[in-house]
């Protein structure tokens, strides 16, 4: 992990290379993270790869910060295998405009993970080659990992409450 000073240096440099990209930095429990503007995420990840050696994208995952605004968060966990160093790039988008630039063209590993975030949180990744639901059925409505999605609120269909049932057992 870069220490707090190293994180600030990286963030300052990112602000120069990709102007207006860095919102703030956070250093928590020894883990460094940079909050960035959603529009610049691809450029920021590219700069971290080219200039700082973070060549592996280990994880992309979504978070719902409900009731805070903007609600939806996307986290990118980067890894530098040579220096055994990790840094997280994080961003937030509002629910009514959940557009984030896809990083799949640069990082093929993000393909399924971005699809999962789209499926679970409804974040739309512009430029993703195949943005479909991945875990939920294709005709599913809603995004179940959102905090305001009820837990266990979906009735289980049996023959007695299935409207498409022909009623032979009734």
């Amino acid at each position: 992990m870069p220490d707090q000073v190293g994180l600030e240096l990286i963030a300052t440099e990112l602000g120069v290379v990709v102007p207006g990209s860095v919102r703030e930095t956070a250093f928590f429990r020894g883990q460094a993270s940079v909050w960035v503007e959603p529009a610049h995420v691809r450029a920021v990840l590219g700069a971290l790869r080219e200039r700082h050696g973070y060549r592996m994208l280990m994880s992309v995952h979504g978070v719902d910060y409900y009731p805070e605004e903007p609600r939806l968060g996307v986290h990118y966990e980067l890894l530098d295998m040579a220096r055994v160093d990790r840094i997280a790039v994080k961003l937030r988008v509002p629910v009514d405009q959940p557009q984030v630039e896809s990083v799949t063209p640069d990082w093929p590993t993000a393909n399924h993970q971005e699809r999962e975030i789209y499926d679970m949180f409804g974040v739309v990744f512009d430029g993703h080659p195949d943005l479909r639901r991945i875990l939920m059925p294709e005709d599913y409505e809603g995004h179940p990992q959102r905090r305001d999605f009820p837990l266990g609120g979906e009735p289980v269909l049996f023959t007695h409450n299935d409207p498409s049932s022909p009623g032979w057992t009734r």
Partner: protein
Amino acid sequence: MSTKSDYRRMEGSITLAPLSEQIGSQRLSSELLTLNFGPHHPATHGVLRLLVTLDGEIVQDVKPIIGYVHTGIEKTAEDKAYWKVIPVVERMDYLAYYFNALAFCGAVETLLECEVPKRAQYLRVIHLELNRIMSHLVWLGTSALDLGAMSMFWYCFREREQILDLFEMSSGQRMHTRYFQVGGVIEDIPIGFAEKVREFTRIMPGRVDQYNDLLRRNEILLQRLRGTCPLDERTLLELGVTGPLLRAAGNPWDLRKAAPYSSYEDFDFKIPVGTVGDNYDRFAVRIAEMKESVKIIDQALDGLPEGPYITEDRKIALPPRHELATSMEALIHHFKLVTEGFRVPPGEVYYAIESPRGELGCFVRSDGSAKPARVHMRDPSFVNLQATAPMTRGAYIADLIATLAMLDPILGGVDR
């Protein structure tokens, strides 16, 4: 009579010339066949569905379709107190339950800044490595079954039983043991457990040699594995593939060595690596890993320190039973922990460990309450599955089966 002569005339009209051409050559490749493979197929090792585009016997493209065992574990975890999340996340990658539990506990311990006692760390290592061997045994048995070696399955499950009996001895459960707790382990190992583990580590290296002797020079197995579906290190890294698959391509990345957790820095072990990254390397790396795990278990038993097996912090771990009868505080702590659970300071951490299939990362976000606001598992099977298509494009469909076996995806972990 006339039927027979009709048949002979028909037979004579058949020309075998197109069949003698190379499969995959231009003339035969005019028609593609899309084959639905799974979700219920023994060779997919779970409920995995693959849409395979075939040109004759050659795989042109593979599209994995997943989600058939999606059970919403991450969502369920948000509705449970931290210590009640452990049994739920254990059920994700159902062959690596100790790893799932450790990834989650480690993330929560990082949030709490909780120190885990040395004895608990060693006990965790013993169980983790037993679990790694167990997971590799299931992989070896089922993979060999896919490749036509029936008896390997029984041999592997014989040793697996022995490990499951050990788990039963230390925790009362054979699978999904709930042995790891935030701050340590639930109970110290019982009397006689160490001897039983020693008995296992004494026979296991010999058994691994037996498996090797059965398979390593087996002509059928070699034909199926050697040189099939290799993928270079660069592509694997781009796809985020970790674990034995990456090590088979020659990259010795192993979090146990690179970023040691749970006292792995105390043990002397090697990281097996392959050279070309074909199916045979993937096979050989895992076989060698089993022997290294045995070494780690032996060292952990040798150096098992005395001391507490769970943190003494009463705000996190339950007080011992005898204190409840004499101490008011212990009773209050017990009551608070069982009814509400412990509160975790707000923040978000990502904690990664080396599971049998690669980097298993757990992201936990806390909002300061007694329930996590978000739990996400970066499951290695989910990410590694993306390598199926690049590995098998241009290979025979039989090699797809072998590759899928060597990929070792656990669908419980993929779909969560």
